[in-house]
């Protein structure tokens, strides 16, 4: 063993090291692991990197709840949740590969810098073999890049930008969430059916990467149904009062307003649009309509009654009645007292899927895990039959078209599922121009 021998492995757990340490008080350890942070003791560490401060802190908190639930189920606690409905039976409730699952948490602050720092500390300090979580595309792409470099698996949380599995895709990263293109593909037929094919759309778009890719996707999909895109106005992220963007809409000849906003932006722009009375107006002889392509139930609460009757898409909703969703809602709801959000569902699935892939591959080695996930087909985790496409690591599944509920029965009951758009309708070719550029590269085991 050479004295100077660069290694990138993580920590060994106390017990194992103590003995060796006593015998040899001064040792430069060699590359003991075959891959980054290879677990050596009776446990394996996962890193849950979610926003705990900043505007998406509540989504982060919901993600953390789901992660804790997933860990509980993996270690054999609780009612097992979706492990019972999952089509794979590799998971036995005895941890992953017989190792007890432990986890560390961190705060992304919804800043790519802070998220990477947090993920690095999980890898360097805590010896995490897998990083997951997040609530924005910028962060997801940044952390995905880091995990690729460091040689651990990244299971992206809530990220909707086409780029995550498009030009910024990475061999070590997988996305369970749907994307802008899928939102467009799912929404466009429903919108056509509802509002007709002769519509003129005015887009307000958050002025950053996610907003642009979603706008591009929605415009393309609706134009495919005969709609015309009258205008696309970019709004600064920091905008809180959207009145000056909403005011000119009515007089522009448009009869549909598409809000490519998320989070606080979405709440405020929708509130402004409703306040201006847009939905009570008639333009071109038709009722004026508003569309919010990406809905989050947690965020929709902030817009209150303004969401009533407004269409959008979402990745998953607790009111789904398939066995998997029901099992998940039951175990989450029993534990925490309220239904899970789509973010919670996504990260729960990802944790299970990672564990399952490890079991099937028989290793935590990221290359082995990635191979087990690539092209993997499964069901029983909600959203019907699902596939992780090998070529870009995007997950393909049914997409929900939802609308704001007219008569909610509780504070959680804000959206109703209008249509479950089948997977086949939202699929696209690997080399679709909206996803062009970039390459997965080689999987990296550190």
């Amino acid at each position: 063993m050479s004295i100077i021998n660069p290694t990138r492995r993580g920590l060994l757990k106390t017990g194992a090291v103590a003995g060796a340490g006593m015998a040899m008080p001064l040792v430069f350890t060699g590359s003991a692991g075959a891959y980054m942070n290879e677990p050596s003791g009776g446990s394996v560490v996962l890193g849950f990197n979610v926003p705990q401060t900043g505007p998406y802190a509540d989504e982060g908190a919901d993600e953390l709840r789901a992660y804790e639930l997933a860990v509980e189920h993996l270690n054999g606690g609780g009612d097992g949740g979706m492990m019972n409905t999952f089509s794979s039976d590799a998971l036995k409730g005895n941890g992953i590969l017989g190792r007890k699952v432990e986890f560390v948490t961190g705060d992304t602050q919804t800043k790519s810098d802070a998220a990477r720092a947090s993920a690095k500390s999980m890898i360097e300090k805590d010896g995490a073999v897998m990083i997951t979580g997040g609530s924005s595309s910028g962060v997801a792409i940044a952390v995905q890049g880091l995990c690729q470099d460091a040689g651990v698996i990244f299971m992206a949380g809530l990220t909707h930008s086409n780029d995550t599995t498009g030009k910024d895709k990475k061999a070590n990263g997988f996305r369970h969430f749907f994307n802008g293109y899928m939102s467009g593909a799912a929404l466009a037929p429903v919108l056509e059916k509802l509002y007709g094919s002769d519509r003129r759309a005015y887009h307000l778009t958050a002025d950053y990467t996610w907003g642009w890719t979603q706008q591009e996707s929605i415009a393309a999909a609706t134009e495919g149904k005969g709609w015309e895109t009258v205008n696309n106005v970019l709004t600064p992220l920091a905008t809180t009062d959207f009145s000056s963007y909403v005011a000119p809409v009515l007089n522009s000849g448009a009869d549909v307003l598409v809000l490519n906003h998320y989070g606080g932006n979405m709440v405020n722009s929708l509130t402004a649009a409703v306040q201006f009375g847009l939905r009570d107006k008639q333009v071109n002889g038709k009722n004026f309509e508003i569309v919010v392509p990406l809905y989050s139930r947690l965020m929709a609460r902030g817009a209150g009654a303004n969401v009533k009757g407004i269409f959008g898409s979402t990745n998953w909703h607790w009111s789904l009645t398939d066995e998997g969703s029901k099992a998940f809602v039951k175990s989450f709801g029993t534990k925490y007292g309220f239904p899970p959000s789509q973010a919670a569902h996504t990260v729960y699935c990802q944790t299970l899927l990672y564990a399952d892939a490890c079991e099937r591959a028989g290793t935590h080695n990221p290359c082995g895990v990635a191979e087990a996930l690539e092209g993997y087909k499964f069901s029983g985790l909600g959203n019907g039959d699902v596939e992780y496409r090998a070529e870009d690591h995007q997950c393909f599944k049914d997409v929900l078209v939802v609308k704001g509920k007219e008569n909610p029965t509780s504070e959680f009951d804000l959206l109703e599922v209008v249509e479950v758009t089948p997977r086949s309708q939202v699929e696209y070719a690997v080399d679709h121009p909206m996803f062009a550029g970039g390459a997965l590269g080689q999987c990296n085991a550190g």
Partner: protein
Amino acid sequence: MFNLAKKDRTLLLIVAGMVLLAPFLLQPFAQGSGMAQFNAGYPDLMQRFVIFGILAIGFNILFGLTGYLSFGHAAFLGVGSYSAVWMFKLLSMNVIPAILLAIVVSGLFALLIGYISLRRSGIYFSILTLAFAQMSFNIAYSVLTPLTNGETGLQLALDDVRILDGMNTNGTLPSTNLLPPSLVNGFEMRDTYHLEIGSWLFQFNTGYYLSAIIMLISFYIALRIFRSPFGLMLRAVKTNQTRLNYTGINTRPYTLAAFVISGMYAGLAGGLLASMDPLAGAERMQWTASGEIVLMTILGGAGTLIGPVIGAGFIKYFENIFSKINDTVLHGWFGWLPDGMEDAVVWFVHIFVGKGWHLTLGGLFMLVVIFLPGGLVEGGQRIMNLFKRKKSDGAGTDKQHHPKSTPHVAE
């Protein structure tokens, strides 16, 4: 040695000792023990300590000496990072050209902003710098995305040109290095040597040591500036510009020089950040980031040499360590308590850690500034004085109390 007064030499040696031994000093708790959560001796955080130390040292040259409060210093950090990453993308993965470019570009940027902003003083100056930095951030986040990659931040890609290194073909991204791996192995920034002693594990990281040495050089230069006639003039600017003008001194070039130097320090820090982790996010330029620099400096002790470094370490420690304490960890700590009490204690502590780390930090800001007006350094001095007095009492000598002649340059 180093052409320094004895007191400064001692200070420099202490700082050097602490920085070089940081992998030991920051790792006081055994792995797997409950307290291991508080260990900070892993490469990323240690790098951050010294890099933000450089940033704060530089900021202090402007604010601590001249009293000009720049509220837009993060812009230089961001510009430095972007320059460095572009260097990695276009030229080579070697960190030297990247860091040099970062310093030059941020220096030029500082010259431009400083030249305009220094036409005003006081809060008007602060707002001008804030406005420039916010414009930089907003544009970098949106319109300049082709240059900055906006929301995600500029990062390396497989199809980067990298003229000197040649196109990479094996499907993995190269990592930043000091010497090309083709020549010497072990000079990549992420190379880490692990040392185990008993159940303690210490990590020695190439990137950290490079940053640490650069930080020591920066500290030394700052020390020289503080003790130089130039530094004296800057302190004079802070206390009385009118007199300085009527003493035949043109204050503008002095303040501009201080502004550019401190901008270059920020650029250096930005370049180093990018060298350790080749991603440059736009948030680095946001006003909150500028505010953080101000807070680091005041918290540690503005105008003192070591204060800003301590302040930087303090804030980064909270950001990275306290935010990671979750309920599972808490239950681990308080598991020995009776059940009901355990839950109560965990519930209470929970408010201040994990997602509540901001609360703790905000509260500590208030406590420090209320009880230690001179920042953390004053706290240290008080403890030292207590210690000294006890010692001198014991010896029975009435040690002459030196008048606190220059609190600004006190260590």
